[in-house]
């Protein structure tokens, strides 16, 4: 299978927390706290293999499902403004190949006693046989039905 398809998308997520920007920022800066809230789903446990929260520093996390590694995430911090802004990239690979990467820009905005958190994700997904094998499961049957429809039309 050749590797030439890519998809890009930008999404902005917003939350308002009762905690101060300093506390919200601390939860990002502290690797132990980040391990707790940073799992991509309840089934996935995060193992911190390296943590270095400073500009140029690298985080390496392994995603474990029932103890088995399913993906590694390598993050690099590009800009840190305490209690205000974190800009970093994360690169996601499974054991075989690159799956995708994202430029993550987090803004911590004081709002009353709380914090409005604005996270912008600029994400690239690249094709690879394993990724497509998984993702295609959900699409193949729909496309089969479409194909059958088109043939009989």
């Amino acid at each position, binding site marked *: *299978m*050749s590797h*030439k*398809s*890519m*998809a890009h*998308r930008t*999404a902005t*997520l917003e*939350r308002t*927390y*009762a*905690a*101060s920007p*300093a*506390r*919200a920022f*601390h*939860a990002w800066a502290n690797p132990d*706290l980040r391990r*707790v*809230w*940073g*799992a*991509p*789903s*309840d089934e996935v446990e995060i193992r911190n293999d390296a943590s270095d929260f400073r500009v140029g520093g690298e985080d390496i996390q392994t995603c474990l499902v029932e103890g088995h590694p399913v993906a590694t995430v390598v993050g690099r911090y590009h800009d840190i403004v305490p209690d205000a802004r974190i800009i970093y990239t994360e690169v*996601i690979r499974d054991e075989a190949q690159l*799956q*995708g990467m*994202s430029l993550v820009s987090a803004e911590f905005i004081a709002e009353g006693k709380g914090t409005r*958190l604005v*996270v912008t*994700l600029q*994400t690239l*997904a*690249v*094709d690879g046989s394993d*990724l*497509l094998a998984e*993702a*295609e499961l*959900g*699409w*193949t049957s729909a*496309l*089969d039905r*479409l*194909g*059958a429809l*088109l*043939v009989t*039309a």
Partner: protein
Amino acid sequence: MPNILSPDSNALDRGFQALADATRRGVIARLAQGEASVADLAAPYDMALPSFLQHVRVLEAAGLISTVKTGRVRTCWLEAQRLAALDQWIAGYEAAWNTRLDRLGQILETKGDTQ
């Protein structure tokens, strides 16, 4: 890259024109099962290979399929399927971030109001 899902109406026109042909719809249906060589795709049709290749070119120009030639074999795949799979990966990634930010909110709530 042209895409039938694009709001660009020219791309839509090309997509619909490409599908306005039984042979080309057959190729799409076959590629929905997985990638295939031009020779395999052409086998069910009583058609000279150069004529069949014209159909492949129309589908490729419409962005519905992509092809790559390796040696003497030209392999074709359904581009819409790949793009849909990649979009799904990004949707999953964004959903994971939504989960994270909700969990972060729970942590911030349960840990008192001082750092």
